[in-house]
């Protein structure tokens, strides 16, 4: 049984009738993901890619037995949709959209934590479990089944790492986009804990970037609690101070959030630092993580 997705997972697509929702539902189905329904308020009774659409999450859960949901909801409506989804009893939520106001995310995070909901994002490519399914936008052709976990702040870099590993015949147990916003719904160290406890994962790659202190906090946790081998790459050594590098959370403020500081913390915690992505393959092979 994999963490995140297993034989009992039944997935809703929220915002399924939008352009991106439709296209991504198609790609998720192509990858044999168990999509059981869609939700768009006001579009109940229609179908998208053969999937029934409901007006509310509660109806969709009632009719389909859904227990997980992936969001392609426009940013201004995400807070409302998130509360609705939690209240309908869904316990795993992937929030793909970017540009969600940070004050909304703080509320969503608090609401989810108090109700024991596991949520990823915002600004995440989602999650892909090779051979089992995917929730989100990851391009499936780059991934291969195996025993290495990947946690990435960046969507595109999660693809890059999976692609490099797959080419070197190193498969992945699960690839998780943790989200690239200043506040995320589940922190890096909490996702690390899930991989540490997963008996289908033998090692973990952290793909971080400048800004914030997720990697520094994760380093403390690794030193105390993680026994599996960990390698880390931190993107953005040429990021000028005070400039936002595309992601809302990718900003060096003064001396905080630099590549150097993050690498130092992770190295001191016993992790292997990868200077560029390609080195992940030799690290995985050397540590026999296939």
């Amino acid at each position, binding site marked *: 049984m994999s963490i995140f997705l297993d034989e009992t997972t039944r997935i809703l697509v929220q915002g399924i009738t939008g352009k*991106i929702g439709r296209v991504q539902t198609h*790609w998720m189905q192509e990858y044999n993901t168990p999509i059981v329904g869609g939700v768009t308020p006001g579009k109940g009774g229609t179908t998208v890619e053969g999937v029934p659409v409901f007006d509310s999450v509660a109806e969709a859960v009632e009719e389909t037995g859904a227990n997980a949901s992936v969001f392609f909801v426009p*940013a*201004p409506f995400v807070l409302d949709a998130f509360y609705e989804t939690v209240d309908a009893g869904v316990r795993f939520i992937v929030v*793909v959209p*970017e*540009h969600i*106001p*940070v*004050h909304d*995310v*703080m*509320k969503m*995070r*608090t*609401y989810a934590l108090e109700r024991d909901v596991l949520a990823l994002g915002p600004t995440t*490519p989602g999650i892909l479990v090779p051979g089992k399914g995917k929730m989100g*936008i*990851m*391009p499936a*052709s*780059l991934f291969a089944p195996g025993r290495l976990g990947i946690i*990435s*702040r*960046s*969507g*595109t*870099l999660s*693809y*890059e790492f999976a*692609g*490099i590993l*797959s*080419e070197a015949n190193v498969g992945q147990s699960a690839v998780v986009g943790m989200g690239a916003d*200043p*506040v*995320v719904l589940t922190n890096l160290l909490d996702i690390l804990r899930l991989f540490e406890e997963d008996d289908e994962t033998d090692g973990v790659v952290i*793909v971080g970037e400048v800004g*914030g202190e*997720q990697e520094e906090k994760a380093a403390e946790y690794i030193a105390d609690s993680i026994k599996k081998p960990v390698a880390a790459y931190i*993107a*953005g*050594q*040429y*990021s*000028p101070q*005070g400039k*936002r*590098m*595309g*992601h*809302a*959370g*990718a900003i060096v403020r*003064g*001396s905080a959030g630099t590549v150097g500081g993050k690498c130092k913390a992770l190295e001191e915690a016993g992790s292997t630092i990868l*200077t*560029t*992505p*390609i080195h992940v393959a030799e690290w995985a092979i050397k540590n026999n993580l296939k």
Partner: protein
Amino acid sequence: MRLHEHEAADIFENMGIPVPRRGIVETTDGALLLAGEIGYPVVLKAQVLVGGRGLAGGIKTASTPEELEEFTGNLLGDEIKGLPVRKILVSQKAEISRELYVGITVDGFSGKPVIVASTEGGVQIEEAARHAPDKVVSVHVDPAFGFHPYQARTLLKSLGLSQRLLISCADVIVKLFKIFIMHEALIAEINPLVVLPNEGLLAVDAVLEIDDSALSRARFSVPDPLDRIENPLERKGKEIGVTYVDLDGDIGLISSGAGLGMATMDIIGQRMRPANFLETGGGITEELLYKCMELIMMKVDLRALIINVYGGINPIHEGAKGVVRYIKEHNIELPIVAKALGNRQEETWEIFRSGGVHVVTEAATEAVVERLFELVGEGK
């Protein structure tokens, strides 16, 4: 969006936080008139959106009209840390008895607002936290519960404040928190919060950074973000809807994601020098990449271009059409190497090749940079 000090001070004043008498001027004559009304000495502050403004010579005290003329004459039209000074804030000079610090930010790790207060105002708060950790206190706020005056008093009591100052300072913090929530700020800060000889308070600086993602529902009239971007290439990037950061190298870059873009710069930087960071986000269309090519080609002395994109949420075959259309319309001979993987990759490669773009099909970005290096070498 970081607001100018004078814009933030107006918002603070409207909420009832005591701020100095002040005005904004663009000429020396205007400054003279205003200083006459306020009364000397006055503080002159260049309105540039950069930290460390004071140390860079952007803040002066003028005790006489002659001093004021000299300082404003020097400041206006000059640059502070590379940013032109167009406006000067002329402000009442406060009589300082002591200086406090209050600030509110988003704590990314806990996902909560954090309120920080210190009796060591007037310096960088990070410095104060290092040198005098017992004089810096903080409290996290439950987003659902909010922040209440008793919490502010408890916080300030732990700094040793008492009596009238305890109450007035708590009032300022509660009002600053209201501003932080109402305007969806990432940072709201008063440094220093001056204690006057009569124990009154005066916020002599005002910092407010609003979350860009919340600007569309802002409750104040939002200034045009384009007006605050000085670099013309970065302004053009914002106009067309991509993130462009100008650098001083000569290898151009278009990437479809922020992390991928930063990593590509890291790899370019091992042997060559990146000219820019450009990240499209998830909105690639033929038109957008055509415009990205226009933007990239605005950079002078470019030696080559790397295009690094993934087809996850992005239709990369559409993007490739825009690149090739630009190349053909403008007879571009600049060496271009592309890596494009994911959904519809084969179709994308064919389109790129039809425009003379070198296509790399390996997964690792190192391969693109290697190919480019073979084509153009190390450079200067």
